[in-house]
């Protein structure tokens, strides 16, 4: 037995930071607020690093039960935390990227009102996210799950005086609640069938019953997947994420790119034992992922707001992770989650640096020529662009290729289709990222056109009367950029496939978690401690597949090159081209620009009818008519009777007593005569 790791401290320290800053931060100087928030994030990061350093000496999975949370009848749920390989990767991402973004935020938010509030919320987010990742049961995971939604709500609505920000926050919360509905039903089904929500309890029961295939496990998997589509912004619930860009940019980087939105992917990977038993649910997840990846990428092609492009890109990349889970390549999905956390956080932070430099401007149409003016931002962002576009040896290449390869060789009938969609999306991704790159950093500055319109309100600068000249961001913002840029370059090297001469370490590292479906947790840990991981067959590609993998890699790099080339042509070599093309395919262009009118569709098909039903049918017609009308009729009737009684009793009796007596008498008589039972006073 390993000595206690005190996992509970990891989420609780940020919670303490939240409490201190949230309750007292208003009166603190900014430096103190910053220090508290940083320390509250640094401590968990160091603790996780410490665990990582001693990881090989631990007996895994490691469980830690802190207290009983709910116990009623024979339902039982604990505050219990668990640590395994998957958890460790998530912990490193959340605390590591989280800490970097805390650093960055001190620079980015330096001139904002409500600075303390921002950091309190950010710490609150860390608390919930770490709870989500560390939870040993679905119910505690749901605490984190809903909690990160709350933090997201508060942070999206940070500029709450803006209606658009307040609306976006509410939209995010409510849409996520639709997903949570699925998560809840999934949990109810789990309780009904397993009598517990503990991961260990559920997965070991599944492991003992190889005959359970599909059936109720499909139902559970589909409801959980619905939950995941909410949190991870997949079709049909992705609509909140683009609007969430109303939040400050560091929030977009941390919550809406690197960590929270990946919770759905994490949940599916965590519950893979359930998904593995349901080919139907897996195919559904794969199709949702592929469809979302392509769909969001097409919208990203034409967006002009730099953050919106990145938002749709995030939706699209999360689609890749879903796709990976859907072909049961969970390790590949988590691998992409890891690299995506690096390069997408970097993209957002770099975009934030651009916005910062331009005093709050987010419209790419009035950017341009920034390469020389903000060189550090430019070079770090370049690393991220190459990473997401999928060029070797950048991080995104390895993870995306692993997903595509796994989809291609998957026995799942939809494997080849989702591979093709994924490939197509890779080309589109490359195009829209280089489009962003060229529009922002190359060509001539189009800032003079900015006078024509006011920048998006939100960041502090627009409150300033006159803009300051374009400037590079302070070191506290640049340092995280540089670190993330390095990670965006080398982060993928933990998963170099055998076809390229690597060992795919991350796949091996995760295999005890991902391939444990036939063994209970205890059995795995016993086996691991005795046989040094040999119990799990290494998921190494056989010789014959190496050439296939190499071929697929070449194809996808070629696709990415095509995307780059077209972007180069349209936004660098011949900048007049885009307008001409848009004019030619006006219908299609308008469809993409308006995001397929999905928001409008949801409004017309769901929100308007619900409100109409509530306002006119239920409230207007039914409640006013039937309920109140019925009550009034009853009232008049009784008043009539009451006055009758008053007259009978020569007006002496209080009407209350009159009603009472009359009613009682009537009922006594009714009882007496009606049922022939004898009263014997």
């Amino acid at each position, binding site marked *: 037995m390993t000595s206690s790791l005190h996992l509970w401290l990891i989420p609780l320290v940020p919670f303490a930071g939240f409490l201190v800053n949230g309750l007292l931060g208003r009166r603190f100087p900014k430096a103190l607020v910053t220090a508290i928030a940083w320390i509250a994030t640094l401590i968990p990061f160091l603790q996780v690093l410490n665990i990582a350093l001693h990881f090989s000496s631990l007996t895994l999975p490691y469980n830690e039960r802190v207290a009983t949370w709910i116990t009623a009848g024979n339902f039982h749920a604990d505050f219990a935390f668990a640590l395994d390989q998957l958890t460790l990767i998530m912990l490193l991402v959340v605390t590591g990227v989280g800490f970097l973004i805390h650093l960055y935020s001190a620079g980015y938010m330096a001139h904002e009102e409500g600075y303390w509030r921002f950091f309190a919320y950010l710490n609150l987010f860390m608390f919930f996210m770490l709870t989500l990742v560390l939870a040993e049961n679905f119910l505690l995971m749901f605490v984190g799950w809903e909690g990160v939604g*709350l933090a997201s709500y508060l942070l999206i609505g940070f500029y709450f005086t803006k209606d658009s920000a307040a609306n976006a926050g509410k939209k995010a919360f409510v849409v996520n609640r639709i997903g949570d509905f699925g998560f809840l039903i999934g949990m109810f089904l789990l309780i009904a069938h397993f009598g517990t929500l503990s991961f260990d309890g559920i997965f070991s029961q599944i492991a003992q019953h190889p005959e359970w295939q599909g059936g109720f496990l499909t139902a559970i998997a589909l409801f959980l997947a619905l939950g995941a589509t909410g949190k991870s912004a997949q079709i049909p619930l992705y609509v909140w994420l683009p609007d969430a860009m109303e939040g400050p940019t560091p929030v977009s980087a941390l919550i809406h790119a690197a960590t929270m939105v990946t919770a759905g992917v994490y949940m599916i990977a965590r519950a893979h034992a359930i998904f593995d038993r349901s080919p139907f649910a897996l195919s559904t997840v794969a199709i949702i992922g592929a469809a979302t990846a392509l769909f969001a990428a097409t919208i990203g092609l034409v967006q002009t707001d730099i953050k919106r492009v990145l938002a749709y890109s995030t939706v699209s990349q999360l689609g890749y992770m879903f796709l990976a889970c859907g072909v049961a390549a969970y390790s590949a999905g988590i691998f992409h989650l890891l690299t995506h956390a690096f390069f997408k956080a970097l993209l957002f932070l770099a975009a934030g640096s651009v916005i910062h430099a331009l005093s709050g401007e987010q419209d790419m149409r009035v950017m341009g020529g920034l390469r020389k003016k903000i060189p550090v931002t430019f070079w770090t962002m370049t690393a991220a662009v190459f990473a997401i576009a999928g060029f070797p040896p950048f991080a995104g290449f390895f993870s995306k290729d692993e997903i595509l390869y796994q989809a291609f060789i998957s026995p799942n009938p939809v494997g080849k289709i989702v591979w093709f969609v994924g490939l197509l999306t890779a080309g589109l991704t490359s195009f829209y990222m280089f489009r962003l790159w060229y529009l922002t950093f190359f060509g001539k500055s189009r800032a003079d056109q900015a006078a024509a319109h006011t920048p998006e309100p939100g960041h502090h600068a627009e409150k300033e009367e006159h803009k300051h000249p374009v400037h590079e961001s302070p070191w506290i913002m640049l340092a995280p950029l540089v670190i993330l840029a390095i990670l965006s370059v080398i982060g993928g090297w933990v998963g170099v496939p055998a076809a390229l001469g690597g060992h795919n370490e991350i796949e091996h590292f995760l295999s005890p978690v991902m391939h444990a479906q036939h063994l209970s947790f205890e059995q795995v840990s016993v086996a691991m401690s005795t046989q040094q991981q040999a119990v799990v067959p290494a998921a190494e590609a056989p010789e014959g597949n190496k050439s296939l993998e190499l071929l697929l890699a070449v194809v996808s790099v070629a696709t990415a090159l095509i995307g780059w080339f077209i972007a180069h042509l349209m936004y660098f070599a011949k900048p007049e081209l885009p307008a001409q093309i848009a004019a030619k395919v006006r219908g299609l262009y308008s469809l993409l620009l308006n995001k397929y009118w999905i928001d409008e569709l949801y409004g017309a098909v769901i929100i308007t009818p619900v409100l109409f039903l509530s306002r006119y049918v239920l409230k207007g017609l039914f409640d006013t008519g039937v309920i109140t009308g019925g009550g009034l009729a009853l009232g008049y009737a009784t008043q009539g009777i009451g006055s009758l009684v008053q007259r009978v009793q020569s007006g002496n009796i209080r009407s209350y007593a009159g009603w*009472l007596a009359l009613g009682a008498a009537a009922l006594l008589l009714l009882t007496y005569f009606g049922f022939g039972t004898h009263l014997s006073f």
Partner: protein
Amino acid sequence: MFNDSILSLITFVPTAGAIVVALLPRRGKLIQWFTLLVSLLTFALTLHLPAHFNYGQTGFQFEENHPWIASPNIHYHLGIDGISMWLVVLVGFLGPLAVLASWKAIETRTKEFYFLFLIQQTAMLGVFVALDMFLYYGFWELSLVPMAILIAMFGRQRGPQAAIKFFIFTFLPSALLLVALLWLYAKTGTFDFVLTQQYLAQNGSALAPQALWWVSLAFLAAFAVKVPVFPLHGWLSDVFSEAPTAMAMVVAGKLGLYSIIRFNLGLFPEQSRQIAPLMIALAVIGILYGASIALVQQDLKRFLAFSTVGHLSFCTLGIFCFTVVGLNGAVYQVLNHELSGAAILILFGILYERYGTYDMALYGGMAAKLPRMATLYVITALSLVGLPILNGFVGEFLILSSSFGVHPYWATAATLGVILSAAYMLTMIQKLFYGEQSQLVVNKNVPDIVAREGFALIPAVILMLVLGVASPYWIRAIGGAVDQMANSFAHATMTLLPNVAEKR
């Protein structure tokens, strides 16, 4: 011994206080301070109960049983179990909050107000501790009278009409209840709850089943109106919008729900079981109906009335699913709802005291101006939408998960309520606090939460968190009482379903 008279003490300290209030001169804030003191004393006394509650013991505790009237055979019989204990403590806890909430809101006729307020406290406490059903009925009726008078006296605009409505809706079914009680007495020769329960369990089959059925319906009707269960909620929105905060805090929910659990489930398990499908349907409709209308209400008090219908329907659902877990959850949810509902009512009252309107449309953008109030609003709203680690979640989850085991489709429909509740609560928060400041908010300079209001609200908010993370402390006592009910059901040839399906 203290344990032998503690319940009488708790119940009648407010009455003694009321008598003193009647004698006190109307000078300064003397009456307010005195009432606050009395309510704090009552609360302190109620804390004696959990401190000395014997968790291993079944049956009622702290019992007092003295013959009162020989014929008809009426006893002064008090006692509590794990269910009623927390309700008594809850009434004690909410007492001082209600006084603080009325501090400035009630400025005229304070003597009348606080006198009736304290009588109301006695009546409510009496309902929860009385084990003689005649005594119980006395407290039940007594709880209606001060309420009706206070609504009439202190109504916003149409107080008398609302009072009459309240009166009609609640007194008529109470008359039915009285008839049913008398019929039972005629059969059993006792008003004692415990003896009646035993009698019905053993000789129930000897009684005319149809008559028993009507009697149980009379009980249910009286209680369901008081909850209120859909579609008997016609009185609630008028009463909510007219009643002073301190009265609105206690008018719905706990009395009716407790009585259904105690009497309908306790005395008529078989009949309750038969009517359960109807009650479940009404509960689920109530959840969705209340939430839907709350979504489009502009008046804060009416908004809250419909949200209350929705929330209390969760409790009804939990009760009539006949599972151990669900019943635990229902009792817990009663506590949660009373706490959070009281807090939000106080918050609405605070707003009204400052701006003089309950119209949501007139508000906007207050968060920057009144940050402390915004924080309290947000936390309370989150508690009401059932955010995990706050109190509402635990009860809601227990109710929904256990009802899913027996009625999956109804439970699924009820779970849709969590989406709607988030939608209407956050819409309310947004309208009040976010966006541009409205004309009303710009023009009127008002203070943020003051110390007195903080004393009322901060304990409530802390308790929301504590109830959310430390539920075993409360459910321990509730669970004991629920298990005992499940056992007594076994006598009546029926069993409370095991909480979680134990298949395989």
